[in-house]
């Protein structure tokens, strides 16, 4: 991630006075998770993980486990699990789990269609159902609900979030985390999977 973009998030958070609100915390969680599933965690990201843990209990264990591993081990295992090269064990695209091991199948298209209903068009060069995209979209719906001009709008967005979680994310992330559990012994990555499920399941409950 380019620093300027990270700045952008911070600024937005501050400008919207999100710093210490519930929604602010949700967004921060999604943002962190999304980055942890996007590339090998670097020093800066691990630093933010520690900061997050200072005020967010849910992230404390992950932050502690990160400290227990060397940077090299985290990097090597991240690559082995999620990127390869070769047949890496944990694929982070929804359709892999929903469409029998294939990408860019009907569930990918349905995901993209869902984004579009909310005016969002993902970039073309990564299938739209990558975990990081979906987490980003959750954040988008969360922020939108919070900023909606009236209660009706807010409800619509929360309903959309709930629908998105049900139809897409929960359906495959639980499977993905199961594979992750079977594929690693490193506590940090086991916890990363559990934390992902915890965070989105909590959102699902709130949506209801």
């Amino acid at each position, binding site marked *: 991630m*380019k620093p300027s973009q990270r700045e952008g998030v911070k600024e937005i958070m501050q400008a919207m006075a999100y710093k210490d609100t519930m929604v602010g915390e949700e967004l921060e969680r999604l*943002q962190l998770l999304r980055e942890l599933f996007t590339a090998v965690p670097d020093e800066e990201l691990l630093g933010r993980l520690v900061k997050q843990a200072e005020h967010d209990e849910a992230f404390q264990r992950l932050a502690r486990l990160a400290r227990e591993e060397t940077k090299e081990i985290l990097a090597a295992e991240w690559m082995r699990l999620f990127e390869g090269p*070769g047949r890496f064990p944990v694929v982070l695209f929804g359709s892999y789990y929903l469409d029998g091991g294939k990408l860019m199948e009907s569930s990918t298209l349905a995901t993209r269609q869902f984004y579009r209903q909310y005016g969002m068009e993902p970039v073309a060069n990564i299938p739209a159902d990558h975990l990081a995209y979906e987490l980003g979209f959750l954040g*988008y719906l969360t922020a939108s609900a919070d900023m909606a001009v009236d209660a009706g*709008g807010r409800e619509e967005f929360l309903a959309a979030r709930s629908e998105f979680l049900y139809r897409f994310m929960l359906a495959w992330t639980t499977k993905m985390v199961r594979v992750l559990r079977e594929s690693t012994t490193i506590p940090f990555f086991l916890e990363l999977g559990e934390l992902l499920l915890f965070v989105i399941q909590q959102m699902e409950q709130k949506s209801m």
Partner: protein
Amino acid sequence: MKELSRRKFIGGSAAAIAAVGFWASGSYAFADGAKKFTDSDPEQAVLGEEKVIYTSDAFCASECGLKVTTVDGVISTIYGNVHVPYNAGTVCAKGSSGKQVVYNPYRLKYPLIRTGNRGEGKFRRASWEEAAKYIAERLEKIKKNYGPESVIMDGGDMTDQTPYWRLFYYYGTPNCAQHGAICDTPRRLGPYLVEGGMRIEPDLMRPALVRQPDGTLKNDFTYKNKLIIYVGWNPFTATRINYESRGTVAAKQNGAKVVVVDPAFCNTAVHADKWLPIRPGTDPDLFAAMLRYILTNNNSSNSERRYIDSGYLDYSIGWPEFETEFRSWWDKKDPVNNLPYFSLEWAAERTGLVAEDIAELAHTFGITKPAALIWGMNGTGHHFNGEVTSVLGTVLNVITGNFDVPGGVIDTALVRSDKGGNDGTDYIKGKVIERVVNGKTITGKSWDLQLDNNGDWPAAFWGALGAYPKQFKDGVKIAYGPFAGYTYPIKGFFVRGGNPAASASTVQRWNEVLTAKEASGDYKTELIVYVDTAYLETGLYADVILPEASYFERMGLSDIYPSEPVMYLRDMVVPPLYEAKNQVEIMNLLAKALHDAGDSDIQGKDFWDKYKKEEDFWNEMLRKAPGRNNVGVPLPYPQYPEGYKILGTPDSLESRQVTIDHDKKVVQGQPLTAEWLRANKGVAVWPMAWYRHMAKSGGIISTKSKKMEFHFGALDAVNKLIQQSGGKVPYMLQQIGLSQFPTTFFWYETVWNPYTNSKYANYKQEYPFQLTSGRIHQSMSATQYVDWLGRISGEHLWMPLNEEKIVYPTVLNEKGVETLSGQKKIRAGTWSIAVIQMNASDARKLGLISGDLVRLRNPMGEETQGRIMASEFIRPGVLRIPPGAGNRFTPGMGQTYEYRQTTPSSNRLLDPDLSSAITGMSSYNDMVVKVLKV
């Protein structure tokens, strides 16, 4: 909902901006992803948009024309392009599953830089900038310390390696290799020497676009073939010449007879009228006996014995010399069986066929017109003596009058459309350089440092990739040309689209040289770069991996091996996923990085300023199309002078929108472009003709004399070069007892064959099996890379004989590498694996049944392991295993990788020190083994 989102967000409020900001932030991979439809209805934007794109496949070397539909920017259907006569609308199981290559979760996505040891497969993600800088700096260091010639670029198995060649030729190395070097060069030698081409195929491509007596052009669907003999060639499985499979069936329906000569009852033999299960490595014996029979029994006044059509004497030179040399062997006795060379009894003894069958084949071939004698990769390309076979095969087709006649044979290399001109060959050939040789400064051309032609393989036309581990190990010793006496090491290896570490020479030797270290602990080969979409074995050794756009995400040109000039476009069907880039982008990016690293040989005017778009590069290549002379019957363009070179689009040539240059003898129509191809179903087809070699104006024959040469001018020239440089005899010629390259009929025995070469006779008892590897395109790497193709069985070599397997994932934790327990179960019999095909009687003798695991050991003590597939479909005493399908040790191969211990590798057992004497091709099919039960 739609309305709501517009009402809530499209107002441009701060809130909307914040929400979008959240979406757009995050990792760079998603950074530029937010696009908001502010003034149009999002659902109308692109939803459901259906597009048809004509393109060409590259899933195998056939490169069939395709018609691909995308819906909403995603590939939805893949069909054959009916307008490309090469495959005429057909597509195979692989071709139609191309989606699973593009959308393969395991494809290479980002540039990677090695973090572990070579061979370990540990990498980190890098940006393109970092990777390009890394490569450029090391290339510059190598150039400074050892000279640019110390880098080898291997362009792999694609027709579109041109941008990479250009980059490396401009960088200054003359050493650009390609997969052809380890494919079948011995098979091509005969055509190359005799008529300047390379690839003799039957006249089976239909429809053919033919000029009619009334001047119009029509598609002709008739098959004129009467007899086709396939020797060691299996077009029904090794699909490169796509039209041969459908064409053979059609010709048969039209009355043609088909004979298949092969140790195995291969898929092509299934369609044959007669199958002759020959002993491996004896194809030249069969051809020599046929030629002797034809020369002996030919009688021009007896219609039952009129084998030879003496017309060839008008357009050839050197026949009397060839015939005299050939006949001079007839009185000699073969030490192996004490029978006169090339006699029927001699051939029967050696080939294991019946003498009457050989006589009948020779007679039938001689008397049937038109007929086609075709030899292939398996039989000739992969045997040490394939060079002898291909010369005799060419001669047999020519003297019987079957060359370029309807229903006969066509050298497709001589008639395909021209393309190219921008690969940098002219640049490197003209580049003047200096090197200090034995204390003296010598001036010459960069090209004079080419490692093959000035080193061990002065007559090789495509290099000797299979022999390269020797050069990595010992360095290059220039023996010929102005720099004779100069030596240099190999320090850089840039591999794109090929997998030499698993397919050229032995796996063991490549592993040895690519991981060899200096005393200092640094790797001897200072830089290895691997560029591909899939992660194959060579990638394991790379310092840098670059993800190349898959064939649906990049452009290119296809013109494979048609019987008339045809050119079709590989077009971008979808934009590259992840961070993959196309070849032109990679060329420009690396060129820029080299330039920035201080390389003054690389300038913007030759790269990024010249080829601003990918298309610019391919358009430049298309300007040469079709580039063939207006010759043959019926004359392709009766409206233009005969013999003139034809250039430009088919429609401009038809409508006479041309300029004619009478001095240069060129008819120039509108230059062909990618845009024209797009507007015309992706393909340009120019008219077919026959008898193109007979044209008074020179026709298609491309030898120096412009005549068919039975005295080989090409090898004469090499001998002269050797003489001028002090006369050092290349080591492989020495091995077979020759002091110079043969310039007319020649004969030498194949290696590791106890039945034909007395040197190996004593291996017969202890190593009772001859090992061959039948080339099957259906089992190439890319096939197993797609899971559902990996389940399909094919031709006894690739069977669902896998054992049940529990896959234990290996993990890295605080203890280092640890293997987990009980994870994934692969059920027995669900995955097609490479097997060892064995005759059932041999299996019975050894007490083996299908599925039994055995070890094969060769006389050098090398071993490979695999399961037996026992059947009647192979000659006793012969084992066949598929090349490249077994023992895959890259995790990029998925489930096939899991079976690497129980699937055999033919490459482990070949003799890495014996490459064919003239062309330098690995002898994949010459080995004897014993079978040991596991």
